[in-house]
């Protein structure tokens, strides 16, 4: 019997030792998120763990998972984007057909929109209303729509159809511009138009043809719209060595739309097989990003692409540029993402920190 007892004592000891070695210390929790950078992270696909991070302007404070910290519950979806209107942040949760409305400075939940959205992507504001792009059923290219949100009741009051794959949406006065990227479901077609919606003319829609897969859109200093069309890369097939390649390859371009005539006034095309994924404007400079190469800068009246990258990067998933600083988040879905702030002129890294899993968008909260 002695051996038995000894063995049990060993079990007992090992159990208690391994079980008691963890201890966590509470960390400081911020409660307002003014004067700094807001980073939204998608989270992993279908895992409902999108999160929001904040970094103060002087980089002295940062916090991750702030919505959960403030509200005690997760947002509960993949954060596609955030739209800001006055004091309100409209957090668009793509996979759960939901928009969470929160105070943009405290991030306390104010309302939730749970009906009238299907695969929502981005929101813009005009005419006292919110306009949300929706892909609809991912495998159906004919059911895409814009949902109109009553900003008083925070409910979808009406919807209207739009061309395939509506992605980003921006407003200028009573006009809305939508980049119709297309390619919303596996095997579905890419699109090549920017839709113009006249909100003061019964949401009449006209379209402007651009290169394939238009996505990021930013107004330049003159008030004209700069569009990044990524070009199509699809219909994957295997060659004789079993290597997958895209059978369909079309050209990417940076195009400027003259908003007075709603026509393309300039087109700068990329080389074959080059697919830039991000674009932003700072002052009179356009910044664009090509994965695994870097961020390039050109003047907003340039007619040619830049030969040399302004900043070398790995693969960015999100990028914003402000006051000569490039804010980028690295693309990773298995470790926390990294926010890197770089001075565009000196190319020196100013700051970096870990932010939520799958970080994708960077906003400025002043």
């Amino acid at each position: 019997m002695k051996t038995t007892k000894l063995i049990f004592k060993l079990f007992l000891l090992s159990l208690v030792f391994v079980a008691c070695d963890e201890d966590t210390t509470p960390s400081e929790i911020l409660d307002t998120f003014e004067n700094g950078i807001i980073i939204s992270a998608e989270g992993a696909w279908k895992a409902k763990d999108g999160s929001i991070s904040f970094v103060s302007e002087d980089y002295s404070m940062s916090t991750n998972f702030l919505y959960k910290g403030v509200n005690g519950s997760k947002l509960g979806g993949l954060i596609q984007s955030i739209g800001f209107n006055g004091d309100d942040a409209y957090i668009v949760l793509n996979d759960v057909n939901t928009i969470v409305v929160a105070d943009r400075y405290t991030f306390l939940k104010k309302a939730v929109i749970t009906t009238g959205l299907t695969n929502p992507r981005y929101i813009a504001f005009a005419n006292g209303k919110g306009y949300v792009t929706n892909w609809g059923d991912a495998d159906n290219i004919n059911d895409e729509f814009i949902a109109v949100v009553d900003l008083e009741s925070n409910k979808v009051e009406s919807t209207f159809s739009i061309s395939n794959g509506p992605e980003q949406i921006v407003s200028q006065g009573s006009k809305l511009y939508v980049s119709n990227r297309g390619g919303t479901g596996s095997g579905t077609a890419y699109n090549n138009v920017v839709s113009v919606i006249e909100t003061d003319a019964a949401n009449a829609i006209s379209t402007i043809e651009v290169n394939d897969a238009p996505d990021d859109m930013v107004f330049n200093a003159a008030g004209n719209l700069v569009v990044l069309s990524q070009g199509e890369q699809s219909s994957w097939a295997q060659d004789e060595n079993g290597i997958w390649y895209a059978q369909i390859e079309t050209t990417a371009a940076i195009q400027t739309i003259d908003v007075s005539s709603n026509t393309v006034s300039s087109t700068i095309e990329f080389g074959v097989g080059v697919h830039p994924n991000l674009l932003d404007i700072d002052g009179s400079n356009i910044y664009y990003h090509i994965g695994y190469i870097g961020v390039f800068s050109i003047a907003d009246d340039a007619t040619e692409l830049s030969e040399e990258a302004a900043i070398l990067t790995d693969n960015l998933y999100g990028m914003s540029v402000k006051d000569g600083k490039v804010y980028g988040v690295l693309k990773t879905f298995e470790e926390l993402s990294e926010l890197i702030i770089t001075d565009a002129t000196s190319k020196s890294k100013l700051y970096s920190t870990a932010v939520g899993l799958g970080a994708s968008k960077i906003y400025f909260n002043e």
Partner: protein
Amino acid sequence: MDVCKVVCFLVVLIVFPVFSQEKIKDNGSLDSIQNLNTVDIKASKFHKTERLGQKTVEVSAKEMARNPTNFTELLRYNSPIVFKDYGNGGTSSARFRGTSASNTVVLWNGININSVGSGQTDFNSLSANTADEIIIKSGGGSVEYGSGAIGGTVHLKDHLSFDIHQNYQLFTSYGSFNTSSNFFKANLGTGKWAIKLSGVFNSSDNDYPFIDDRYQDEDGNSLKNDNGNYINYGVDLGIAYKISNKNKLYFYTTGYYGDRLFSDGLPNPSAGSERNEDFNQRNLLKWFYRFGDFTQIINTSFISQEYRYYDNKDSKDYSFGKSQTASINYSLNYRFSNAWSLKYLMVADHINGQTTDLVSEDRDVFSLGGILNYKPNSDFIFSLGARKEYNSDFKVPISASLSAEQKVAKFIWLKANVSANYRVPTFNEMYWPVVGNRDLIPENSRQGEFGLEFENFGLKFNSTLFYIDLKDKIIWKPAGNSNLWTPVNLDAAVNKGVELFLGYTKKIRSHFFHFSGNYTFTEASDSENGRQLPYAPKHLLNYNLEYGYGIAKIYFQDLYQSKVFTNRLALDFYSLDLVHVMNLGLDISLFEKDNTNLVLGGKINNIGNSLYYFTNLRPMPGRNYTININYKF
């Protein structure tokens, strides 16, 4: 710390009866003479060669009647397995000892029925209520069961007995959310023939209210589990013919159909639109033949499995995955002396898999194995085995196993097992368009366990220390310049811990007392960064406590699972809170005579109405009720 208290309490609770067993012997031996006999029979069964050196738990028919809704729920309260299900009734995967779901093998009458595509079994698309025997075996077993037997194996067996008998069972239950679980079973034996026929039918609206009040709809109303209905049914038939005692033929066939909607959970259940259908069909022909000191068994099986997944339940468009596996499994056992025997194994499989996007792929597998058993006396058993698999897709390392059991004192056995096991890459991992990786190699493990077992006086106790070193673990990672995830042999993990089982039965005149419980402590960590692996709780405890007086039995079920991480970051934000659920039930035996027994049961599930999750934001039901009738004749 709370965790420490729980552990200390558990250790005291579990160790105490063993230290004080001498007392039990002194006081209890007279009362438990009847129990003693039955336990002894079980004890000899316990040291069967196929379970040598390893820890096993058996789930009885009584337990099936108490958790009939699905297989996940049954095992959640009766085994050391950790389950991850996507909401109540959604797809469910099983993990032993902190390993991954594809390291758990489910065997139906000895045949591996894991999905060819995913390498896992969905425990909510399997009818286990009609099985005659469910055995949960922890630990490695590739020598015997082939690919995937690293964490453990779950065995579902149908009994075909030639003894002259006729047993019938009818079970029906109805409960909250329009949930109904039903099955019937008929087992017959005529001396020459043995027949088993059974059927199962389950359905539920499954529209339980979500008790997580942090989330509401846009009008401030509480939410419920929309889009969660399910219906499933299955039939099993087994026929056996005894040509002679040495020459027997068995045939088993089973069909299953399941139609489920997948709920979306929080924060917006109305976003749910997915539907899934399962079609499973399995056939097995077994020939048992003994000549001289040789026993040979030939199993010929054909299994087909198919799922159809509808992204939009109202649409007719679906994506599918289907597979056919044809297999011949030959074993020859030669007993060349009273102490020594040798088993020779030969398995040939042909597997075909197809999905919507993937052209048909084939795989041929041929395995050879041998197991040497040595049992010089009734106190010592030793076994040594090896298996080599030849696979048309890649090289498979040799698996090997060494087991021994030694009786060290009256009613006390020490058990030890060391083994090397493997898990071959699945069809999805290898062939999925664009992301499939044809360069994958099998996962492989070195593992060992050491256990102590006590069984007598109505008390059964088992404690097993385990250690698993897993290499070339296949995980999905984002690849290159795209948002595509592709599987790679990247990871290494070490899982170690202890599994405890305690069972105790006591009958004094009209009083009946029964306890059975499992506790597992697991430390499963990534070898590279030391982080705790996802969905591997440190503590898992479940137990059933039962008291009976006369015709009434009252029972209590308890489940405790500590916090789990939902991804490899091991951060609190990406975790699920600890789970603690309790159920309370009452069975009343209305009629009991000879072989006839009519039991009326009622049960309150989740009596504390506690909020618990097994996947992020898919809450499980709050307090709910079921009643059932269990009629055996």
